[in-house]
């Protein structure tokens, strides 16, 4: 009789195999009194040296088998293990009569608890690192081996209390079909590494090491977070089919990696990514994007206690520009207000913040603050193809005012002898019903459009998707939203400017043919959606897309639209 356990779906995919219980070594010890403190310190130092050497070797291996970023976790362990604060604490404890083992456990536990008590995810991760190095050094002191996953039978489902970075360094990737742990969430090391290795993983399954028996057949459903022990024939068959389908889909998508984004009849499009901070840029490039279609600059402001300086902003923008190596980077200027609160700006609470003092309205009213951002953007434009995007535009006057400010900043920078791109593009985030209605007017003065479908849908349908009672109206399949999108794209194309989309709708394969029919050029999506969207674009020729568009745009209701698009889906 099978049994099913639920956990955290931390790494996608379905693994079927035999359970291998990785039981951690018994690291218990009897504390003993120490006479010769110097000798005991030397014993600790020796264990530490061996640990660091082994860890360094693991980090080197990891660079090849897992990736640079993950290898850095291991290198970080060496730094932590050699931290003067930790070493001092341990030496002091040994001087006080503790044996090396007890000194290590007491001192590291003290630091671990300090980190655990902090209200910050990053600190809690450091606590896990400290626990990991404690295990490693303690094993050295006691002459025991830590869990070794370097040699495993094919099709192993690794069942372990916690998958530590040091275990994953040596893991026999080819033979691991899945991972089950008793602790850890989606942001834990185990999860990050399982995803990097593309091994299906379900974490935080209580008592997994007790419930799953060595050698038992186990299914790891990393999509839904299920672990099935001893499945029956029917289940095995069902999951095997799902595993095959998943692998097939993934494999099929891989065919689109490194390829240009083209329609079925060879029309070239741009596949871009949306990012929220400079580090995301690298992830986006790793996911094979060709540009950044939306860099939300708010993180710079929201993570700070006061307005970030021109230099701070410049550094962040420059980092993204250089990461993209000359490919376009569209940076949206501060989009404050609405649901994004920045305490130090001391904005008054409004009855209707989405219709209130936000985004470009705030920025134009605080031109001195806005100029700091514009100057930083201009300076960064000397290092790549940075484009300025203005959010929440509702009338051409706003665009003109922003462009005037940009010109003022250019003059200032030129006088200061600073470099910038003279021809920097200034475009509009098309996200209001007003902007959609006057797309023809705006297209004459904007350098590009990028459609923000999240707000455009909300404003057009006058529906808040967070409000359960009206969320049913929040859908881009409503003819009102589709017409707004069409008007924006068609008018932009008519004026010969680039039109892109950076809202979630850009990654909806059902909408792809419509967007292609209207002539949209750039699709900006989240990193994991890049290949999927590239595939969707490749399925449609202009003629096929036009035929579907003609049919769909005559329909009256969202349900009819969605049904027609689903029927035609490729």
């Amino acid at each position: 009789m099978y049994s099913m356990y639920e956990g955290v779906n931390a790494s996608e995919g379905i693994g079927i195999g035999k359970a291998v219980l990785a039981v951690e070594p018994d690291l218990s010890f009897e504390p003993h009194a120490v006479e010769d403190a110097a000798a005991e310190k030397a014993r600790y130092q020796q264990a530490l040296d061996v640990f660091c050497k082994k860890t360094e070797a693991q980090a080197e291996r990891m660079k090849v088998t897992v990736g640079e970023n993950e290898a850095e976790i291991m290198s970080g362990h060496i730094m932590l293990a050699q931290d003067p604060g930790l070493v001092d604490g341990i030496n002091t404890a040994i001087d006080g009569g503790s044996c090396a083992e007890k000194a290590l456990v007491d001192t590291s536990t003290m630091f671990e608890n300090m980190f655990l008590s902090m209200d910050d995810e990053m600190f809690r991760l450091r606590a896990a690192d400290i626990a990991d190095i404690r295990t490693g050094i303690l094993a050295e002191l006691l002459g025991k081996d830590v869990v070794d996953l370097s040699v495993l039978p094919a099709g192993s489902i690794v069942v372990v209390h916690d998958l530590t970075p040091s275990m994953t360094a040596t893991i026999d990737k080819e033979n691991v079909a899945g991972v089950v742990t008793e602790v850890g969430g989606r942001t834990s090391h185990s999860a990050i590494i399982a995803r990097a290795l593309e091994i299906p993983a379900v974490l935080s399954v209580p008592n997994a090491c007790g419930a799953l028996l060595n050698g038992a057949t186990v299914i790891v459903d990393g999509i839904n977070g299920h672990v099935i022990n001893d499945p029956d024939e029917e289940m095995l068959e069902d999951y095997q089919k799902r595993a095959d389908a998943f692998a097939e889909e993934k494999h099929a998508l891989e065919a689109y990696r490194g390829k240009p984004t083209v329609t079925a009849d060879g029309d070239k499009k741009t596949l871009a990514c949306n990012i929220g901070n400079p580090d995301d840029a690298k992830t986006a490039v790793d996911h094979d994007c060709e540009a950044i279609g939306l860099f939300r600059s708010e993180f710079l402001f929201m993570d700070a206690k006061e307005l970030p300086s021109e230099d701070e902003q410049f550094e962040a923008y420059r980092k993204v520009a250089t990461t993209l190596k000359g490919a376009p980077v569209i940076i949206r200027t501060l989009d404050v207000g609405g649901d994004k609160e920045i305490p130090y700006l001391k904005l008054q609470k409004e009855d209707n913040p989405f219709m209130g003092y936000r985004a470009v309205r705030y920025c134009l009213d605080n031109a001195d603050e806005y100029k700091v951002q514009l100057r930083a953007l201009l300076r960064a434009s000397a290092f790549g193809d940075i484009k300025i995007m203005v959010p929440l535009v509702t009338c051409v006057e706003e665009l003109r005012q922003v462009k005037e400010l940009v010109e003022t900043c250019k003059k200032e920078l030129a006088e200061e002898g600073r470099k910038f791109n003279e021809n920097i593009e200034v475009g509009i985030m098309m996200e209001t019903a007003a902007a959609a209605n006057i797309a023809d007017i705006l297209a004459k003065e904007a350098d590009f459009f990028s459609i923000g479908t999240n707000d455009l849908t909300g404003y057009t349908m006058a529906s808040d998707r967070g409000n359960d009672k009206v969320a049913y109206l929040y859908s881009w399949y409503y003819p009102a939203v589709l017409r707004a999108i069409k008007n924006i794209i068609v008018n932009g194309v008519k004026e010969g400017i680039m039109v892109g989309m950076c809202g979630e709708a850009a990654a909806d394969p059902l909408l792809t043919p419509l967007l292609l029919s209207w002539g949209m050029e750039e699709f900006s999506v989240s990193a994991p959606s890049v290949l999927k969207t590239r595939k969707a674009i490749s399925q449609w020729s202009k003629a096929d897309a036009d035929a579907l568009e003609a049919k769909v745009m005559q329909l009256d209701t969202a349900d009819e639209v969605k049904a027609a698009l689903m029927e035609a889906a490729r």
Partner: protein
Amino acid sequence: MVSEKVTLVNPQGLHMRPAGMFASAMGKFSCDVTVVTPDKEVNGKSPMALMAAGIPCGTEVEVRCDGADEAEALASAVELIKSGLGE
């Protein structure tokens, strides 16, 4: 031994990155470096101890340097803290 009081201006306090930066800068000096807050004393060369101390923005800390290159170390430490430790 030389010492000087200086106020921490990092918006997030002595967080991971600034703590690491401070400790590694201090590691280049041979003298002992201690950071003293109103309620604790921590090893200024230890990123872990500095982070674990969780010193918030606006705290006045005393930096104590003791050893051969203490004057140089103290000047460097004060300068670093005043400049916001790269933040």
